[in-house]
């Protein structure tokens, strides 16, 4: 019994430093600058926007962009890698200061978080196996096929709510690469994804081709910011504007998004 109590006391002790620091009324941006660190959430499994290289470093379009934003804010970026689905909750509950993870604007997301100005406009693509014999001339045509999509993405939203795909034909995956592998093996017939990662996937996996590209589900990509924090939004938007003018973003797109 004594040892149990001692262990509990030990647990309480080591968790003490984690609790108790009630923050003074200070804006988030002030706090970030004072700490010299901005905590940024991302889901590092979405090349070429955010992923890890073979030695585990986070790389990609979004990563490099955010590092530059951090540099211009005068702070270090502390990356927090979370599943895509956790990111909005993370920003909403203040666990991370913002999130960059190829986010597109949606009304639902806008209810709980804010968005920065767009930093890049994404196109959607339909990906099929090279052996695919159907025809897709306009986006609505995909409704008759078995379609795979990464769950929780704007493509998922578009298929579900705009196209109103029959549920039995819609296959949702945790990660885009799972869908691509199933596409190759014939378990699904069409896959919908962001055009640039779709191209990358097609190349990596092989045996896949893109049959349609266009702006359907998403359009512009934005950084997700805490609801109502206009100060942080203004600071980041200013930097984005500079980066666009300087051609930094075009260089990034050149580096990561064209093959």
């Amino acid at each position, binding site marked *: 019994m004594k040892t149990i109590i001692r262990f509990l006391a030990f647990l309480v002790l080591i968790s003490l430093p984690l609790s108790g620091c009630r923050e003074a009324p200070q804006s988030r941006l002030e706090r970030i600058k004072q700490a010299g660190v901005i905590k940024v959430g991302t889901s590092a499994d979405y090349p070429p926007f955010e*992923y890890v290289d073979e030695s*585990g470093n986070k790389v990609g379009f979004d990563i490099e962009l955010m590092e530059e934003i951090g540099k211009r804010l005068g702070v270090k970026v502390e990356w927090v890698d979370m599943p895509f689905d956790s990111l909005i909750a993370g920003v909403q509950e203040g*666990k991370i200061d913002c999130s960059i993870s190829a986010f597109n604007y949606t009304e639902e997301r806008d209810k709980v978080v804010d968005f920065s100005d767009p930093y890049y406009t994404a196109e959607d693509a339909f990906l099929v196996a090279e052996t695919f014999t159907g025809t897709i001339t306009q986006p609505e045509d995909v409704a008759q096929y078995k379609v795979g999509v990464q769950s929780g993405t704007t493509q998922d939203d578009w298929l579900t709510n705009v196209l109103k795909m029959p549920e039995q034909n819609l296959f949702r995956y945790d*990660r885009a690469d799972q869908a691509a592998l199933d596409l190759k093996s014939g378990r699904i017939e069409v896959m919908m994804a962001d055009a640039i990662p779709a191209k990358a996937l097609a190349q*990596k996996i092989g045996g896949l081709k893109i049959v349609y590209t266009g702006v359907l589900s998403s359009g512009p990509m934005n950084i997700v910011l805490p609801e109502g924090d206009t100060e942080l939004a203004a600071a980041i938007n200013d930097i984005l504007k500079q980066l666009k003018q300087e051609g930094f973003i075009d260089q990034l797109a050149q580096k990561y998004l064209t093959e």
Partner: protein
Amino acid sequence: MVIQFFTYILQGTSVTLAVTLVALPLGLILGLAFALLYNYGGLWVSRLAAVYSLAMRGVPPVALLFVLYFLLSGRLVNLSPFWAGSISLGIISSAYQMEILRGALQAVGESQMIAARAIGMSRFQAIRYIILPQAIRLAIPPWSNEASIVLKDSSLVYALGVPEILRRAQQLSATTQQPFLAFGAAALIYFILVFLANRGLDLLAEKTKLPNAAA
């Protein structure tokens, strides 16, 4: 490349082990407390313990993780993702460990309690010196199973941004499009960890085993 690959995933092992080493003992303490309350706590306390067990076995671990980290942490207490995740898994595991210990306590039987009371032990003394030492011996094999489960469930803390073995494998799978290699490496590490844990507990069971044949 394969070496680098493996090294990156292997770095997640310390997270996996740390989460397990918090969640498992926490689950044991809570589970033991609830098992004792269930077996010896009287009608209402016992029902409460049963409800706790049912609720915690029913709730998906990820849901509890989210509640603890995103909703409670920062309001009631300030928990880092690591602690929120480890504590959530500990709470869930406590329900399973409670069932293991509850069964073991019952298997020891009421008659050992009566014999202990008959020499003047209090209920507490009887539980402490007579019932528990026997129950814990009986609980080691099923507990070893639970330890493996917690070890593998520890991957769930990735939902809060703690990058352990499985998450690292996912990342590499996305980067390289070589899921078999990435997840194979993760599986191998898990296998080794589970194997070592089970071997250790088997040895413990062997060491504490009571002789059962006439000498």
